[in-house]
């Protein structure tokens, strides 16, 4: 255990990247997910089609491939850079890849939330003369959001775990799992305590998120 605690600064540095990746990707994927959901229930067939193709396409592609495309494909092969230093360049590409991928799952959750809004709500809103946008913004989405707090929590937890892939798929963000792999490869750190230490680190991130969203989903539930 001493070897693990001796490397505590590296462990904390790794998890700080994990948290940064998670929070920024969560923000962007939520915004993109709401836009995709609005497109998928919109009256314009073209918008529905475009959003469906995007969601079905990216959702069925492995995240490793999505991140490789961002990392090796666009960043290295085409040389498109987003930031001055390599460290932040790969970080932002990882955020883009993770957001593009996670937005599909946010959109799927939100759409199933839209399905839980009772028909009468929408009909009442329409009979009051609300337009589609007003209907979505004032009536449907607020209720849909409340009913999918739990599933969105699951998506956030999956995202937290998925950030580990950003370290390897041609990007090399120095997040927690990469730090663990480096410690294994150097052969100095004892494997089992190191693994348990990092596993506890991830459980500290994921379990409270789960408890919090579980509590929040009960609090936010629409009483019907």
């Amino acid at each position: 255990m001493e070897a693990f605690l001796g490397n505590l600064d590296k462990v904390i540095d790794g998890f700080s990247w994990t948290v940064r990746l998670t929070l920024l990707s969560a923000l962007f994927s939520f915004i993109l997910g709401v836009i995709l959901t609005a497109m998928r229930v919109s009256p314009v067939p073209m918008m529905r089609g475009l959003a469906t193709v995007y969601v079905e396409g990216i959702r069925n592609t492995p995240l490793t491939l999505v991140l490789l495309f961002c990392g090796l494909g666009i960043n290295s092969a085409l040389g498109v850079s987003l930031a001055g230093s390599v460290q932040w360049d790969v970080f932002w590409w990882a955020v883009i890849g993770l957001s593009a991928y996670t937005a599909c799952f946010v959109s799927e959750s939100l759409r199933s939330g839209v399905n839980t809004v009772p028909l009468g709500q929408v009909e009442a809103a329409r009979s009051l003369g609300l337009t589609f946008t007003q209907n979505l913004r004032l009536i449907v989405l607020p209720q849909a959001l409340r009913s999918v707090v739990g599933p969105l929590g699951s998506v956030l937890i999956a995202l937290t775990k998925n950030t580990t892939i950003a370290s390897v798929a041609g990007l090399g963000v120095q997040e927690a799992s990469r730090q663990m792999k480096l410690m294994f490869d150097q052969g100095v750190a004892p494997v089992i305590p190191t693994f348990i230490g990092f596993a506890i680190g991830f459980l500290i991130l994921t379990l409270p998120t789960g408890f919090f969203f579980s509590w929040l989903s009960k609090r936010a539930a629409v009483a019907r």
Partner: protein
Amino acid sequence: MTAQNVLFDAPGPRARARSRIFSVVTVLAGLALLALIYLGLNRSFGEGAPPLSSPQAWQVNPEGQWTAERWAPFLAAETWTGYIVPGLQNTLTAALYAAVLAILFGMVFGIGRLSQHAPIRWISGAVVEFFRGIPLLMLIFFTMALPLAVNQLLTAIGSDPLPPRTFQVDAMAAVIVGLTLYNGSVLAEVFRAGINAVPKGQAEAAESLGMRRTQVLWLIQIPQAVTSMMPAIVAQLVVLLKDSALGYIIAFPELLRGFSLIGTRYGNVIPAAIICAVIYIVINISLSRLAIWLERRNARRGRASARATAAPGMQEPPAGPEGPAPVGPAPDAPGKP
């Protein structure tokens, strides 16, 4: 009126006109996006590139990714026999082994969580929550490092380390172990939810007939639970197949690794990535359609489909009464990331 357009009225002339305008705007935005991708991959941006107004910027750039030479390898038989087919075989083999093992793992621990003996419940619960709560990649790394761990343990207790080459973990084994532990834990929750979804009266009736707990489980509850669990199981197999691409990271020669080798050999990273994505999408969408078909079949027969939606640490969502008629388009398979 279909459920599709409950959010908006049947369009009148003005709404139809507006819808046409939005359609055109969407198509233009889509075309602009495609053009951006085309030009980006064509290397039409950057210093020294011709201005976008000139036709040169739109012609296929020999430096870009759209040249015929970069796509030609995919027409050659040896690309398929040398990289893609073996890769696909490895992917499917690993996924198949992992699927069978994960279902077994899920059954053992799912039933364990329903045990009447508290210690078995606790241990099963801890195992399931642990493997669901940590990243799959860490499990794969740990499995790869197992020989090192064993040697460290042996040294710690004062005995000699294993002679070299007696205990090795190859990449496929690591992928299968990782996929089994993670997906098995998710499936354990599916099994638990499925068995819990069987009406309580069934188990009570069986018990009143004098059946033992094991008999109730195997003869009454599980046979009825299987159909309701099938959609969730198939949806999880899609996740499993997608996650097998993590083998790329530990140099397991699966589909993605095959395409990455093609990309390095012919310098066509982007075409390789696009064709690789298409293959994954075709396989996964077919599997997802199977899950949807199973779910619809259950719905037709008046049975609910079990889902494991709760993330680690979360409680099962309350199984409320069937909700009101859906508003938006029908949901697809219960796919989880």
